[in-house]
Every structure is written in C-alpha cells, then in structure tokens.
C-alpha cells in the first residue's frame, strides 16, 4: 500500500476567517490525504516547526488579511532552514493581488489558488506535484 500524501494546512497572522482553510482540509482528507490543520493565528515559526515535526509533503497557507508577502516569505525561509533541500511543496490560497504573485513564486510558492478555484483542481495539483 502506498503512503498517503501528508498535508499541513496553516493560517498565519492574526486573521481568524478560516472557512476556506477548513473546507480545504476536509476536501483533502476526503481525497485520501493525511491532513493536519494548525488552527488560526499561527506564527511563521510555529508553522515551519509543525511542518518539520509532522514530516509533511505539502504546506498549504490560507491568507486573506493582506499581510501575505511578509508572512509567506518568512514561512518559506524557515522551511528552507529547517528542511534543507527536502522542502515540502508550498501552496497558497486566498486573496492575493495579481501584482504580488510574482514575489510569492520567487520565494518558493508553487501555486496560488484564488477565489472561485474548485477544490478538485487543488486535489489534482497536489497529486500531480507530489510523487510518492
């Protein structure tokens, strides 16, 4: 039996609107992945530590507050420090202004899922990108 894909869904910053994060966590679980949801108000340090401890293949960041650039850059740097070359796939969901996308890709984000994305697309992207 092949190993399940392990995913950490995380909500950084002070914003607590986590409808999206919870729906995604539920969907990925239904798609057969092992999903850990951090809960709200996680610092970048807490997220990177959880990703390391849980040995996940994917880190999904949900963010709507507008504070994405700084928070995601920090998370990406901390993941790199902790995991060396063996980084989990980093994906982002939420309201990300078009002009900010490039800098998120540059700091290591693989994909950004905006409003209206179907959960099927997200499942398909993760399955395609993580080769177990």
């Amino acid at each position, binding site marked *: 039996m092949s190993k399940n894909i392990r995913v950490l869904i995380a909500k950084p910053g*002070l914003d607590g*609107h986590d409808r999206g994060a*919870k729906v995604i966590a539920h969907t990925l679980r239904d798609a057969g992945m092992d999903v850990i949801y951090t809960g709200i*108000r996680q610092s970048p340090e807490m997220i990177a530590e959880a990703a390391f401890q849980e040995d996940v293949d994917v880190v999904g960041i949900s963010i709507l507050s*507008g504070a994405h650039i700084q928070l995601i850059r920090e998370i990406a740097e901390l993941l790199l420090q902790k995991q060396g070359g063996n980084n989990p796939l980093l994906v982002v969901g939420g*309201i990300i202004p078009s002009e900010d996308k490039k800098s998120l890709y540059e700091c290591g984000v693989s994909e950004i899922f905006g409003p209206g994305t179907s959960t099927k697309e997200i499942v398909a992207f993760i399955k395609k990108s993580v080769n177990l």
Partner: protein
Amino acid sequence: MDDKLKDNRVTRSGLKIDPVYTKPNKNDSMHNDLPGEFPYTRGIRKDMYRGRLWTMRQYAGFASPEASNNRYKYLLNQGQTGLSIAFDLPTQMGYDSDNKIARSEIGRVGVPICSLADMEILFKDIPLEEISTSMTINATAPILLALYIVLAKKNGVSLDKLRGTIQNDILKEFIARGTYIYPPEPSVRLATDLVTHCSKELPLWNTISVSGYHMSEAGATAVQELAFTFSNAIAYVKSALERGIDINSFVPRFSFFFVAQTNLLEEVAKFRAARRIWAKIVRDRFGSGDIKSTRLRFHAQTAGVTLTAQQPQNNLIRTTIQALAAVLGGAQSLHVNSFDEALGLPTEESVELSLRTQQIVAFESGITDTVDPMGGSYFVENLTDRLEKLSFDYINQIEEMGGAVNAIKNGFQSNEIHNSAYKLQKDIEDGKNVVVGVNKYQSSDNLKIMRGQNIDKNDIDKHLNRLYRVRKKRNQNDVRTSLKELEKAAVTQNVNTMPFIIKCVEVYATVGEISDVFRKVFGKYDG
C-alpha cells in the same frame, strides 16, 4: 403531474419548498399580527419606514488615526450622521502596534489604536454629542469604550449624550472569525462588565450587537445563524442577571446584527422570525413583557461571501437583492458591500454605488411606503413559522448541552457551521447550487485582483513614534498603580472591571498593557 412540480426544491437553509402555498389553517399561525405589537413579526414600529428610514451606515477604517479622522470628517460633511469604525487586527487582539506580532498587520483591516493619544486624533474636531459611533470591536471592547468615555469627559461631553453601538459579542468570535483572547467565561464576564456599567452610565449606548453575520460568512444556514445568535444572547442576558440587576435596565440596549443573503424570501422570513423569537425568549424565559426589552432592533449587512471575483459587476445585482431582503425584513440600519470587494478594498466610486443602492431602494422601489409588504404572503408566512420552529429546536438543543458557552467549548456550533460550508462548496462544484459567472455562464477573462489598502509608511512611523512618546512622557507611577488596581479587580470575581479600565486609559496606559493584565489573570485561549 408535471415533473417540474415534483422536483425537490429547498431554500438556502435546506427547507423544503412546495410548488405552491395556499391559505394556512386558521390555527396555524398568527397572521393577524400588527407591526409595533408583540411579537413584532411585522416590524418593531407601527409606522416603520413611513416614520423613519433605516440608517445607511457604511463601515470604514484607514491605516492611521489621522487618515481615518480625515475620512470621518469628510463623511460628516456629506451629511452622514453615524460613523462606523473598523480597527486593525492588533487592536482587536490587544496588542500595541510595536509588538512583534503586529508588525505586518498594523493598519491593514482598520485603524490602529494604542492609547488615548490615538483616540484624541481619531475624533479630533468631531462633536461626540452630535454623532452616533459604531465600533466593531470585541475582545478589547471594554478598553475601546473606556477610551471613548474618557475622551468625551475630556471634551466636556456629558455621558448621557453619547450615542452609538459597540459590537462586544465575544461568543460569536469563538464560533466564527476568531478574535478572542481569553477563555470563554472571563470573556463573557468582561462583556457583561461593559453591559452593566453602561446601564448606569451611558443610557443611550447600545452595549452589545449580538451577531449572526460572521457565522453566516463562515457558512451557517439561516437557521444556524438565528439559533446560535439567540443562544449567545441568552448567555449574555443570564450573565447580566446574575449581577442582580433588573432585566429592563439593560436588555433594551441589546441590538442584533444579521446577514442579508441573496435568497430573498427566506431572508425576509428570517428577519421576521428573528423578531418573533427574541420577543418570546425575553417574555417567556426572562419574564419581561416590556416593549423596549422584547422588540428586536437589528443592523444588516449584505453577504460578503456572495461577492464573486469573477464578473464582479454581477455583485451589484446581488447586493441589490440582498438590500431588498434587509428592507423588506425591517432592518434598522444597513451596510451594502461594494461590488469590487472580492478583488480588494473598495474604491470611492464603488462605495458611492453602495450608498446609491440603498437610496434607490429607499426612494424609488416603493417598498418603504407600507409596513411589512410581504406580510400575508402564504410562502413567506410559512417560512417564517418554520424558521422560528427550527431555530427554537436548535436553541433548546444547545440549552440541553448546558448553554452556548459549554457548546462552544465542545466545538458544537463551529462544527455545525463547517458542515454547512462544506456541503455548500460541494453543491457549488457539483452544479447543484448555481453561482452565475462561477459555475455557470463563465467568461474567460483573467482575474485581476487589486492590492488592498496602501499603507503609507510615514503614517505608520508617525503612529509608532506617538506610541513611544506616550510611553516616555506619561506618569509611570500612575500607570503602574492603575494597572495593579485593575489586576486586583480582575482577580475578584464580583467586581466590575470597567471603572478600573477607565482609570488605566486616563493615565495613558495602552491597549496592549491593559490586555496583558487580563492575559495574566485569565490566561490565553487557543481554541
């Protein structure tokens, strides 16, 4: 029989809908209710909008006290009489702007307020006795209201002239949205401290706005929105009654806050049912028949989650239907979201369109000329009855769990809401639930999401420098003493903390320092 007649159709909340409704049995319902009379199904006043329109109140907050003050003065000059203040997340969570945790969030979703010095700038040259101020703040509500009180005193405004509303509904933060700091019990105590303090000192202030809006945004159905909101309201009433005060001394200052969704007729029925439910709770459960206590006043806001990033102009039509629902449902005040809010903060033009939407509903649609125009519609009356019954069933279920606080600690309400959100997402993806422009009639335009509030670094620096200056110049002894006194009050269960918070802010103790005292005494809550 025609197949279309046999279709299974349901409302947004999953209530079954028959192809046609006819006259109900005589003893089925109270269809002869009159507006202004218990249980106020048809409205809280005899004349409703013939007497006075709802308040058109648009919510805004800018990245600094100076910028917000400019905007408020502009709005007041345009004839707006009510301000509605958005605070940034660090202020909502009890952190000063120089706290490490605040660094990327200062001024993002509203104005940062650290001390009386910021409050003085926020309301500079604004006559507090002439306006009504709405503050969307919960965990730190007692501190922000204390700041407003102290500012009024400094400006020589008598407290019985202060009008406004403070959200102060911490329980729904545990259920949705998440801006709680302390565990549920001490959080309810602080909310109650504010309620009971105002019942003596600020007679015109709406001390709580018990909110279903955020639960709906998190995915709640209309029934869940009603039931969980009223369960929370019951918890607040009980908590205040435990202080030994008369119900009619504080419940008249309770107000409510609901969403207006696009599902027009169910929403109208929801608002009608809400009034009936509250009237019955206050009379039957708490034994007050006083009109001021039993009648439910509410603010409505159109549903943020229904705004689509795809084909954004469609949202103008959605918010118009939602505004109609609020007005047909008898709202006392209304905020209409702007059509471009799924793409970023609204522009001045789009905010103006929101106000124009309200004005067209008010002056052109004709629905304000008679009271409760939907009253007597077989379908709407039937939905009103069913929503009332289903809500009471849910409320009783929560009471059996030991009330709202216990249910929250078991995660009951948030799980129920999540299940609704998940089902809705599946229904949208399966095409069972049509969202025009998203899962039907799509266009291939690329989404262009705009950057939110542009935050001027100079504004933030100025704000931070003011905080440093305040910390340096104030009388440190006074600050230490007042914070110590507050701590003593907080550890003593039956002492009202409000007068102590007021003393702290008077000597320029900060929102962060005061919240730290409570964090020390009550602990932090991690959900």
